[in-house]
């Protein structure tokens, strides 16, 4: 998409709103730097919120026990005084250096940013839809096989096959059933993870003959030139059948991919991690920092607590870019009135 809007100007742009991106807001905020955060997920918290919200975490200093979501909630509370702006459901596509340092960043939705400092806190990369390993699926992708619904109207009068048993599969089944010519939901078992209310609605539609429900897994596709005509489905009893359809929407959850990071012109370690200087957590590209699971240095441990340390040091160097003429005085939140004012407690 072409970006035509005015860029959003900020001191610091943080790519990734996981725990480390969130704590970066705090450390930057103590030093008067304002931050915007971008994340591909529709909520802050990264893996903690998406993969293990209810799982225990025992190694956050001073917190003998918390959960993924518990930690995210606490961090959101902690950074409240600095009022960061979140841009959720967006992925950074391009980064262009337009000053020393000044960056122009564009997202996949066409939003533009101008930031003096970039902080890449992208963890394991961006969460992207998992693609089913059906042989020969590639030519159909983007033509008659889609992993997300951008515009419902694109599916009007289609013979739809939706695959999956979670909320995405059920929500889109219910939303697209009225516009599609015909809709089949295919799931590997007759038991669904999705919200019970959605499952009930789907079953009512099936009972009334408004749509079909099939149990099985897709093993092959039929069609030509990227246009689907049918899918071979293997049932739980081992028998195979062909299901006619012209469009397929597989919903198999999310997986982490490095994504566009690889195209931003930053040197990578073993093709997937960003090497940094351990005094500043800056990359080989001045003004671009990398913190948390996505960075690499000798001895690196992929722990949340390492990331917390990294953002504190990163902020010291970032200050010199954002306020080149100011002198940075080191202060403690325990005793500094000016820091306590920023936190809204003095």
């Amino acid at each position, binding site marked *: 998409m072409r970006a035509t809007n005015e860029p959003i100007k900020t001191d610091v742009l943080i790519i990734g709103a996981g725990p480390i991106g969130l704590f970066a807001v705090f450390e930057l905020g103590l030093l008067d730097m304002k931050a915007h955060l971008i994340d591909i997920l529709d909520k802050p918290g990264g*893996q903690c919120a998406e*993969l*293990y919200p209810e*799982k225990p975490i025992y190694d956050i200093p001073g917190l003998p026990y918390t959960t993924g979501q518990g930690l995210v909630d606490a961090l959101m509370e902690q950074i409240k005084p600095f009022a960061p702006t979140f841009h959720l459901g967006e992925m950074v596509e391009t980064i262009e250096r337009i000053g020393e340092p000044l960056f122009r960043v564009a997202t996949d939705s066409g939003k533009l940013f101008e930031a003096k400092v970039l902080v890449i806190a992208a963890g*394991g990369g961006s969460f992207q839809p*998992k693609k*089913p*390993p059906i042989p020969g699926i590639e030519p159909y992708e983007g033509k008659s096989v889609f992993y997300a619904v951008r515009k419902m109207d694109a599916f009007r009068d289609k013979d739809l096959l939706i695959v*999956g*048993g*979670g909320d995405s599969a059920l929500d889109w089944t219910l939303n697209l059933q009225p516009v599609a010519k015909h809709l089949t939901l295919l*799931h*590997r*078992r007759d*038991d669904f*993870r999705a919200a019970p209310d959605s499952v009930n609605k789907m079953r009512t539609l099936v009972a009334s003959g408004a749509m079909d429900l099939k149990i099985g*897994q897709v093993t092959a596709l039929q069609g030509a030139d990227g246009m689907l005509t049918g899918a071979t489905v293997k049932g739980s009893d081992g028998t195979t059948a062909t299901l006619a359809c012209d469009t397929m929407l597989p919903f*198999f*959850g999310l*997986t*982490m991919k490095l994504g566009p990071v690889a195209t931003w012109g930053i040197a990578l370690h073993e093709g997937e991690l960003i090497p940094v200087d351990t005094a500043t957590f800056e990359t080989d590209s001045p003004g671009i920092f990398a913190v948390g699971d996505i960075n690499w240095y000798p001895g690196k441990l992929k722990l949340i607590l390492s990331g917390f340390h990294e953002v504190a040091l990163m902020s010291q160097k970032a200050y010199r870019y954002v306020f080149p003429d100011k002198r940075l005085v080191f202060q403690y939140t325990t005793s500094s009135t000016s820091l306590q004012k920023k936190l809204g407690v003095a």
Partner: protein
Amino acid sequence: MAKITYIDAAGVVRTVDGEIGSTVMETAIKNGVPGIEAECGGACACSTCHVYVDEAWREKTGEPAPMEEDMLDFAFEVKPNSRLSCQIKVTEALDGLVVSTPERQA
């Protein structure tokens, strides 16, 4: 210790010692056995440690719990003997366990 055997999609057989109390996933990762990714680190929050349990061992490893069954929806080529290896604890009773890894995890 319990011997765990992993057979990859190409048929390569690897047998390693599993520590009692650890999981079949952890045992694979610790011993550099390929074919198991464990993206979430063993939280039963992804499906990238998917394995097929050898028929002879299915009774001893048991059936997946409901949450594991939910996660298996995200795996590919799920079969009746599919399990997430992070949810199989290594016990003395599993000494000799044989699992195969699928062609792809994600």
